[in-house]
């Protein structure tokens, strides 16, 4: 048998509401946070794949096999002009013949020359991965001034995905904040009604010389205890759901885009969720009781 409290909380079912709300909030928060962490990990992996460069190809032959001659240099100059005047582009340089040779060495052999081949000229573009250039604008400018230039930017699309993921992570932060707030309001509501229900007992133990702290502690312990048990249940319930989602995501993408595993540190972070819920319930109840008592006689 648990030790009886001075205030007969056990007879008052509204306090169990804190247990339920804590269970629900922790369950949802753990899933949200796990989702954010998985996204974060995946984003870090994607980030490694963004080399910070892209290439632009300027064809040296027309589609029907004729040499373009001087037009090639005109296109190169125009393309460089567009690239270098774009924000987020650090540098843009035409690859020299020797650079082209070494690039093609795996296919052509060490001493082969690319000069005789109908290869396009390549422009190597260094970009700022923290502040990506506006690709749509570059494409539009190319279409107008260098219609034959080809922008190879699939690595940058990944970068755009990274930005999206980062915004999503920020959104989960907002959701978590919202959940904590609604939990705090529930605790305030339950605690205030508890003060009303138990006012006679409170008056009595006040009469016996119990200070505000003594009474506050009883409510806070009760609220924190219920939030802890509800939070632990919510945490445990979230585990199979997380496992299922991870399995599903892993199957869906072959583990390539989404890395659905968590590190030990991330697990620890997830486990702080029920503890934060407990602390929140404890402090909110304490604050509510304390300020209400001060207002009474």
């Amino acid at each position, binding site marked *: 048998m648990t030790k*009886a409290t001075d205030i007969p909380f056990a007879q008052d079912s509204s306090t169990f509401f804190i247990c339920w709300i804590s269970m629900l909030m922790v369950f949802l928060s753990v899933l949200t946070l796990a989702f954010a962490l998985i996204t974060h990990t995946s984003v870090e992996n994607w980030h490694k794949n963004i080399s910070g460069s892209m290439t632009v190809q300027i064809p040296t032959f027309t589609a029907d096999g004729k040499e373009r001659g001087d037009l090639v240099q005109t296109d190169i100059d125009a393309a460089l002009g567009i690239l270098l005047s774009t924000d987020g582009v650090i540098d843009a340089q035409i690859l020299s013949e020797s650079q082209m040779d070494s690039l093609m060495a795996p296919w052509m052999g060490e001493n082969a020359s690319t000069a005789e081949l109908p290869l396009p000229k390549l422009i190597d573009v260094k970009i700022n991965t923290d502040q990506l250039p506006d690709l749509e604008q570059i494409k539009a400018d190319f279409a107008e001034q260098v219609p034959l230039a080809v922008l190879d930017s699939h690595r940058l699309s990944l970068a755009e995905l990274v930005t999206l993921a980062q915004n999503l992570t920020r959104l989960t932060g907002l959701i978590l904040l919202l959940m904590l707030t609604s939990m705090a309001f529930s605790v305030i509501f339950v605690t205030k009604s508890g003060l009303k229900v138990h006012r006679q007992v409170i008056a009595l133990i006040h*009469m016996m*010389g119990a200070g505000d702290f003594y009474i506050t502690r009883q409510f806070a312990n009760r609220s924190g205890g219920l939030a802890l048990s509800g939070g632990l249940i919510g945490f445990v319930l979230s585990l199979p759901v997380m496992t299922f989602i991870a399995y599903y995501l892993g199957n869906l993408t072959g583990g390539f885009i989404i890395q659905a595993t968590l590190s030990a540190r991330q697990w620890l972070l997830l486990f702080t969720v029920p503890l934060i819920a407990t602390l929140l319930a404890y402090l909110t109840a304490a604050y509510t009781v304390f300020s209400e008592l001060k207002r009474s006689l």
Partner: protein
Amino acid sequence: MFEKNKLSSPIAEFNGVSFRYGNGGDVLKDIQLTLQPGSFHFMTGESGAGKTSLLGLLYMNHLPTRGRVRLFGKAVDTLSRAEKSQIRRQIGVVFQDYRLLNHLNAFDNVALPLRIAGVKETEIKRHVSELLTWVGLEKQIRAFPPELSGGEKQRIAIARAVINRPQLLLADEPTGNVDDAMAKRLLYLFLELNKLGTTIVIATHNQNLIKHFKFPQLHLSHGHLEYIATPATRSGNTTEDN
């Protein structure tokens, strides 16, 4: 527990105190009262004379409508919340309607003032068991108030009021539900406490007790307080046999 300088000043002092509930008429009128440390008084008066109301002023259940109440040398209307709690811990009250907590057993009810005062559990266990045995409730120690008779509840209420050895003990008709032998036994408990320095006020109708113990009476009639030094001389005039 007892500080010398506090013993020398009155435990309670009423100066021109009147009291009324809400917008009703004055229940207590222009009361002058001084309780010296270590004194023992009966409080008498017909039902409705204002005994419970006067005791309520003594434990700060309510504040006077007019006049000034000082407890332990301090004006009650100037006390901070913390000071009030501190003074209340030195006052034991036996309520007329007991006010036991029904969800706590006899032991935990009696232990309450000690827990509030932060006494260690091992000490609480010893003191509470001892006292419950003294009032003849050693078998009911785990019983809950709804399972107990009126007299048993009354004794628990008394044990709770005295467990902390308060400096001031206020008892509102504490022997109304026990036979004369138990009433006397309980009065001896109060007497023991009084010998240790506790100031005591007992509101009672019980003429046998008043005659037997011969303590001075604070007699209330129609809201006025009258001090009766030798109860034996006035026993024929009082009409509280109900």
